[in-house]
């Protein structure tokens, strides 16, 4: 008896293991069979919707009498939304999705969200059964790469005519136009912000340092700061050199190109010789000036964003290149009396314009979406002025729709300062570009080395030309 039991147990064990092995191998060989049904299908749960938003949406849907015209026919079936949850939280998406599902009650909406969602959903994209709508943000997500991998629906024609819920042409409302890949548009910029140089207005006032408006003033006050011995004039995030690229180097490139941002497009296109052109050289020389004057805190070389921002908040450094999210990100560590000052660029000569280098996170529709109509309708639903205000209120950042934020007192002062710059005729908002990942890596390494005084502008340019050359060879 006992033995039989033991025997069958081992047999059971072995068969179980064999099955597991078979299952393990099986899944990979069947990558092509896309089973459309998502096994765990959770019908929309709007437990999070608070009453406040309820009333809001109701009034909205009532007033817009022609939603069908914008969104097409009645929507039904499954609709899956993938969104990354990071610094901006998930409040906005929860609210928007809840409102959307109220408008289209026949839609079964599934949310795939979280801080690791990009990795979690990757197998689905590879196997060709992606979600319908995707908000592309966070680690592991890269819009350009998704276009390269042919994962996103071509929205070129759609954008030409698409109107939002309020019946307004979406194209006209976008602050920043989408990146064109070989003339085609797939990801639509949803978040909008720009890089810039940040400082503490209060500290500057206390020491009677002048807030700089151009390069000469910047150098002058930096010298003053350095001579005071109180702090270093400038710190940057050496571990992630795209901060200094966005806040300093790229602004200088556009400034030296006579405020013509098309040079950035040419960089994205990896035009031969573009990284050796005169504007680039002049821009790098400006960085070199900072290095030679000893204005850059040597601590910058290897520290990450939190460390550099901490040092900045502790008044170890006066200026930091950063993105508009910095206030929100460091909320808990901002000392009392700290008053964020922001300037899009410092590299322009006296009397010149400000140059703002934008950043974004995009939204897109999957090429293999099962419900592309719903995904497009959702875009039309959120790309409205109303949701632009809600985004600003819920995240402290700006989205890419031109909207009047001054009415809302929940929008951060930094966002309002920034938005003041963008609306000014003295500011040039450069086009948004995404360099090829290989070239971008070389750019970051080179800029870090340049700011660290390890290489010359010439070496920077040579490295970039070589990297661009290599990438061009790879199709």
């Amino acid at each position, binding site marked *: 008896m006992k*033995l039989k039991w033991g025997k069958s147990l*081992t047999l059971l064990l072995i068969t179980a293991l064999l099955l597991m092995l078979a299952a393990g191998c099986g899944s990979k060989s069947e990558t092509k069979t896309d089973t459309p049904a998502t096994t765990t299908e959770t019908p929309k749960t709007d437990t999070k919707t608070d009453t406040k938003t309820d009333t809001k949406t109701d009034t909205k849907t009532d007033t817009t009498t022609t939603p069908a015209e914008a969104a097409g026919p009645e929507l039904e079936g499954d609709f899956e939304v993938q969104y990354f949850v990071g610094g901006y939280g998930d409040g906005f998406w929860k609210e928007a999705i809840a409102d959307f599902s109220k408008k289209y009650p026949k839609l079964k909406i599934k949310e795939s969200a979280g801080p690791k969602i990009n990795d979690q959903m990757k197998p689905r994209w590879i196997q060709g059964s992606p979600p319908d709508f995707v908000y592309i943000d966070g680690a*592991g997500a890269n819009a350009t790469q998704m276009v390269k991998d042919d994962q996103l629906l071509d929205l070129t024609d759609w954008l030409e005519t698409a109107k939002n819920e309020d019946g307004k042409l979406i194209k006209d409302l976008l602050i920043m136009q989408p990146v064109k890949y070989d003339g085609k548009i797939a990801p639509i910029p949803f978040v909008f912000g720009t890089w810039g140089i940040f400082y503490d207005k209060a500290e500057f006032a206390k020491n009677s340092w002048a807030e700089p408006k151009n390069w000469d003033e910047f150098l002058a006050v930096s010298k003053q700061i350095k001579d005071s011995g109180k702090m270093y004039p400038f710190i940057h995030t050496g571990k992630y050199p795209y901060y200094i690229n966005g806040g300093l180097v790229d602004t200088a490139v556009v400034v030296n190109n006579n405020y013509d941002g098309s040079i950035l497009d040419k960089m994205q296109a990896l035009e031969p010789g573009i990284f050796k052109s005169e504007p680039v050289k002049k821009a790098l020389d400006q960085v070199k000036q900072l290095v030679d004057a000893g204005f850059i805190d*040597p601590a910058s*070389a*290897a520290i990450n964003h939190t460390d550099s921002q901490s040092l900045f908040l502790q008044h170890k450094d006066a200026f930091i290149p950063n993105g508009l999210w910095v206030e929100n990100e460091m909320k808990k560590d901002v000392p009392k009396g700290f008053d964020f000052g922001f300037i899009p660029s410092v590299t322009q000569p006296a009397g010149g314009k400000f140059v703002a280098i934008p950043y974004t996170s995009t939204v897109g529709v999957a090429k293999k979406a099962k419900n592309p109509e719903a995904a497009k309708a959702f875009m039309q639903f959120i790309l409205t002025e109303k949701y632009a205000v809600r985004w600003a209120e819920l995240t402290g950042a700006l989205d890419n729709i031109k909207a009047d934020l001054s009415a809302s007192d929940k929008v951060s002062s930094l966002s309002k300062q920034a938005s003041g710059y963008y609306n000014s005729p003295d500011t040039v908002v450069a086009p948004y570009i995404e360099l090829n990942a290989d070239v971008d890596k070389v750019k970051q*390494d080179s800029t870090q080395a340049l700011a660290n005084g*390890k290489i010359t502008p010439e070496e920077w340019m040579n490295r970039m030309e070589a990297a661009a050359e290599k990438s061009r060879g790879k199709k």
Partner: protein
Amino acid sequence: MITVNNAPSIDHAVGKPKAGKGMNWKTKRKLFIFVFTVPTLLFFCLFMIYPIIQGLYISLFDWSGGSETKSFIGFDNYKEMLNDPILGHAIYNDYFLVFWKVIGIVGLGVFFAVALTRFRMKGSGFFRQVFFIPNILSVVVIGVLWNYIYNPSIGFLNSFLSLFTEKKVEISYLGDEAYAMWSLLPPAIWAGVGFVMILLIASILSIPTELYEAGNLDGATQWQQFVRITMPLTWEQIKVSILWVVMTTLNGSFVIVWIMTEGGPDNATQVMGSYLYQMGFRQYHMGYASAIGALILILSLITTLALQRIMRRDTYEMS
């Protein structure tokens, strides 16, 4: 080897004299061995062999890691590796770490083990625990901790050095190509010493004290006792320690590098593992990353085999 006589006696001990009815002991023994080896083998195949084969397979493709399609390019990824200066530097860095970690971890481990056992130090139990603590910390924690120590502006190390200088010390240890690799060593060594030390303490304690007493009577110094008695009799453990350090370094130095420098500044601390990650997940060349993975596998195998060859000694029996 189990002898013929042993098998029935096992049955006896379990108290199942008639258990083998209809099955002779040979089949039973086979079944017994089968039950213990096959599941392990299956798991090994599933979690080791299959991924390795899959990785080798992917390394023959040009694949971004995200697209549905991959294009077969044969050995092009491997050819490209030959012309990649960063990869060459990464390999150099890996062996730099291997060399200094072996010296540091095994050297210090042996020293501490001998000190805590043979020198009859006071409070050896306390030191044993102190040295072992880093081993129960995650490498991630260690990396973050040492990042703070190295912080050029508010870090402990520069503050400490500043006590002895007139001007404030502001060395960016991880930000300067000249120091960055060296700066990775102390945390890596600190994290590994405890394990080797414990291993060797156990081994030294198992050496009969008579041997040392005899040595003392013959007038052997501590050093001579170490070279003539301790070293030969703990050689197996030292060998295991060295191999352990070598293998964990070649396969696992990724973690500490990624936490502390992400391969920077300017690729100065790139190791094969971090470069693999950079290529696969940051620059979207999964095929190339898999080829780097294959290279790590090959280099680890060669290194381990070569080391085993070099370190082969006649074993001394203690009886």
